[in-house]
């Protein structure tokens, strides 16, 4: 499979997962089934009691809009991505009302405002930890650092850390993002297995923690490594029984926006999924932060499998319903982006 096909698979997984999961976000699996008469398996108009309530069918939220803008930034900067480049992505993204107003995560919003000088004082300045900066705002946009570095964990982690530092400079948020980028980087390589992809995620956790020991804030509490291992074990044990798997992951690991819940849980779903689209559907119906779980899981599985299991009409609708400018004139172009990024990734690899 070509790099372009794998990147298109990752972009489609991230986009479809986000747009489909936007409808079910915050609910439990039980509530999703009750509301929709079963699992949600297609793009729907969002319901009134979710963050995306003002969206229309096919519109994405923060997850994929940030991935898309990072993709544009890789192209614009010819692959030279540093912390400054990632900060600029966040500032550009904050100008997009259609995403920033309703979809900025709790920590990302505050840190962007601080970056722009709109919030002068850090009320946690006296603390040695940042135990609250453990949400998945960086993990949700870490797949590009993976698909732009096929098989190259070292650079994937370097770029992931640069991406995380402006908003989530903590051991938990960075290691969760590194798990995602390293898993995606491994998934991009021909012949990769699921076991190797999970191993890459765990390597990303360990290596990123080692690198940021003196530069990021420590977090007192649950760690990504043990939580991913627990989720993968559940995925292997209950992969044949979707209802049981979703219950076990939701009730024990959790599926909330906290990294040690949603980012760990998605690796359990990844082990159980049969295809990239199946991964997206499992994530959309897993409960909690469903759009992030489906989007991130979809990106990893999409890089692993390519674009084959995604529907053409979903891509067309997402491209039609989403724009990367505030005037709503520059529509998303997933195939075009995949082509440009693949060229760049192959050049970087050479």
């Amino acid at each position: 499979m070509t790099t372009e096909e794998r990147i298109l698979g990752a972009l489609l997984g991230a986009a479809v997962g986000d747009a489909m999961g936007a409808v079910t976000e915050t609910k439990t699996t039980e509530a999703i089934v009750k509301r929709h008469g079963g699992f949600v398996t297609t793009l729907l108009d969002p319901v009134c009691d979710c963050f995306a309530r003002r969206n229309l069918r096919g519109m994405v939220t923060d997850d994929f809009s940030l991935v898309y803008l990072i993709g544009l930034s890789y192209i614009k900067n010819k692959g030279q991505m540093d912390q400054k480049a990632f900060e600029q992505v966040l500032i550009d993204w904050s100008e997009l009302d259609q995403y920033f107003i309703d979809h900025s995560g709790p920590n990302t919003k505050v840190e962007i405002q601080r970056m722009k000088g709109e919030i002068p004082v850090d009320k946690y300045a006296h603390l040695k930890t940042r135990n609250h900066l453990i949400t998945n705002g960086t993990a949700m946009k870490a797949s590009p650092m993976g698909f732009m570095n096929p098989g190259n964990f070292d650079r994937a982690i370097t770029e992931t850390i640069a991406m995380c530092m402006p908003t989530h400079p903590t051991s938990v948020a960075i290691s969760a993002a590194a798990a995602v980028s390293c898993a995606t980087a491994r998934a991009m390589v021909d012949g990769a297995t699921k076991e190797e992809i999970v191993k890459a995620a765990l390597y990303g956790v360990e290596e990123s923690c080692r690198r940021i020991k003196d530069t990021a804030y420590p977090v007192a509490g649950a760690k990504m490594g043990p939580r991913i291992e627990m989720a993968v074990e559940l995925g292997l044990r209950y992969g044949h029984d979707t209802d049981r798997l979703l219950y076990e992951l939701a009730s024990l690991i959790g599926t909330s926006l906290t990294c040690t819940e949603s980012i760990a849980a998605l690796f359990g779903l990844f082990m159980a999924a049969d295809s990239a689209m199946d991964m997206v559907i499992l994530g959309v119906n897993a409960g909690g932060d469903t759009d992030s779980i489906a989007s991130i899981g979809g990106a990893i599985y999409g890089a692993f499998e390519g674009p084959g299991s995604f529907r053409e009409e979903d891509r067309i609708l997402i491209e039609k319903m989403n724009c990367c400018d505030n005037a709503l004139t520059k529509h998303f172009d997933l195939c075009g982006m995949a082509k440009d990024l693949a060229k760049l990734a192959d050049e970087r690899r050479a």
Partner: protein
Amino acid sequence: MRKDNLYGCIAGAAVGEAMGAAVTTWTTDMIREEYGSLIESLLPAPTSTKMKGKFPAGHSADAVPYALQLIARFLENNGAMSEYDAGEVLLQWGADPANLEFAGGITRESYCHLAGIDTGYRYPFLTYDHHKISNEAAARAFASAVFFPGDVEAAVEATIKVFKNIYGNMVSLSGAGAIAAAVSEALKDGATCHSVLAAGVHGARRGFEIADSYRIQPAATALVSRRMELAIEIGLAAQGDFEKALTEIEEKVGCSNAANESVPAVFGCLAACDADAAATLRMAVNLGNDTDMMGSMAGAIVGALHPEALKQDDVRLVEQVNGYDFNTLAENIEKVISAR
């Protein structure tokens, strides 16, 4: 005997909270670095903790002062209690800016709601909301549970009723049910570590069910009862190996202010230490992050179970610093229970 256990519960909660307040938000490594070892005594809170260096050794955080005012209200009512008591007491307690400065997020938010102050909350349209899953109800649950020694069902029911408006989230109230049930069981003659652990898990499930029957707001996150089972399993397997239990509970269960982390973590500590009062408290206040609330919850349970094991110097210091009188409180609670 019963009065001693009541005294132990309240004093244990206060000592545990004050002990943990000295290191709240820190990691276990930071505690070791600062003090050369894990802490096991009452210390002043440094500036780099949540308490910003303003608390002398023995000073309470926010759970016990509010809980003791609630107990005073229940005593005035001859043991009757309702959700209105929790609201009225919160309004009185929160009116003092010094109390509100260190209040937990949901306590402060509920106070503002009652006082008509805008909190800037952005998501009133959500049916399922994750932001209220804190342990604040659980850390105050001993206030209602002490009136129901040995009657686990009544303790859980009363606790959920009292806190359902202030801490209106099913996960939060499930945590409160766990602590209420464990305290109630620990106050019973013949209670053991195992009976307390079992009561706690039952209380978490009952708390969740009762909250559901009140149509309290749910949240899509891990269940308190499932994480308790995990924590207890870790604790029992690591009995005799303090460091292993401490690390595994922190890394797998967590120790944040979320009720589905810190409440299960307390039960993990109980299991690992076989409810030995000093060891359980030592583990709970050194896990990191929400150490004051874990100290308070663990202290209430082990104090009720083993009142004789509390260090009297610590109890006296906490009484002196905060102006408490645990003996009189315990006597008055005992009178109300006996009259009932």
